[in-house]
């Protein structure tokens, strides 16, 4: 019971933050809708945990809560992979910029030496 309340409270908190960020144009409408749907889903599942059981049994998992944990792990792992790939790309882009600046600002040796 306590966990349900905490989870719902956190979901509302997250919703508020996302809305605030969207109003300040820090996140795009696309991500705002996606995040909002996610947190609304979290609230619904927290209120009615049994609601996901039929879906779970359909795919051969006993409890809805278990199914959610499995899905969460897969989604998080994939998200982490995407972030790491993106990070690597950003690192390479930084190096490219640093390289360009270095080449443009070369100090050539004095000719009389």
């Amino acid at each position, binding site marked *: 019971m306590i966990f349900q309340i905490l989870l719902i409270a956190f979901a509302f908190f997250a919703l508020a933050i996302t809305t605030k960020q969207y109003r300040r144009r820090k996140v795009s409408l696309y991500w705002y809708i996606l995040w909002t749907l996610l947190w609304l889903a979290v609230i619904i599942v927290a209120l009615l945990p049994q609601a996901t059981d039929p879906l779970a049994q359909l795919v051969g998992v006993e409890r809805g809560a278990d199914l959610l944990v499995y899905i969460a792990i897969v989604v998080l792992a994939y998200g982490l992979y995407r972030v*790491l*790939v993106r990070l*690597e*790309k950003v*690192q*390479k882009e*930084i*190096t490219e910029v*640093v*390289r360009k*600046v*270095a*080449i443009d*600002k*070369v*100090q*050539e*040796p*004095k000719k009389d*030496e």
Partner: protein
Amino acid sequence: MKTVAIIPAYNEESRVADAVRDASCFVDHVVVVDDCSYDQTFDEAYSSGAYALRHVLNRGQGAALQTGTSFALKNLNPDVIVHFDADGQMQGRDIPKMIDLLSNSDVDVVLGSRFLHGCPDMPLSRKITLKLAIIFTLVVSGIKLSDAHCGFRILSKSAAKRICITRDRMAHASEILDLIKVNRLKYTECPVDIKYSDETLAKGQSSLGAITIVKDLIKSKFFDV
């Protein structure tokens, strides 16, 4: 034949000038890439007569080597690129015989080797790490060498164009060997003389750095973008 030495340097203000002067006795131009040192490396390099380039952020030795190579290929029209070190461990007088090897045979790359003729004076832990690196290189890149991570290299212009280093940090040494294999470049080894001092050993790669290199390489196989 126009020769250009590339010297990546990070916090080497006390040694970089000597390295530049040593190298410039044997090559036409010296390019120093200061990898965002917090000491006077850049000024020392410039006043000792090198082309001085500066990374505004620290990007690692591999990145610095590639910056110097890109600069040289773009502006200095070199026939031969020499990878040299800023810390005075490498000896400039090894350069001519390596260049001779390159010009008198049909190889594209000459790799310096510390083990080709006997074994240099170095700590046992370093020796073991380097031997493991040789086995690692044979397994991963399929290249059999007597010394896999010397860092002293001579590249022909066409080889330098094809070997584009993307591993910014220390894994670039293994990456270069990989690229030699992938591009089917001809290579040979040449014995070089490396002087170890307590000072340079303290600053150079620790043997534990090998773990980082392996980690970097594994990462590059999975996260290549």
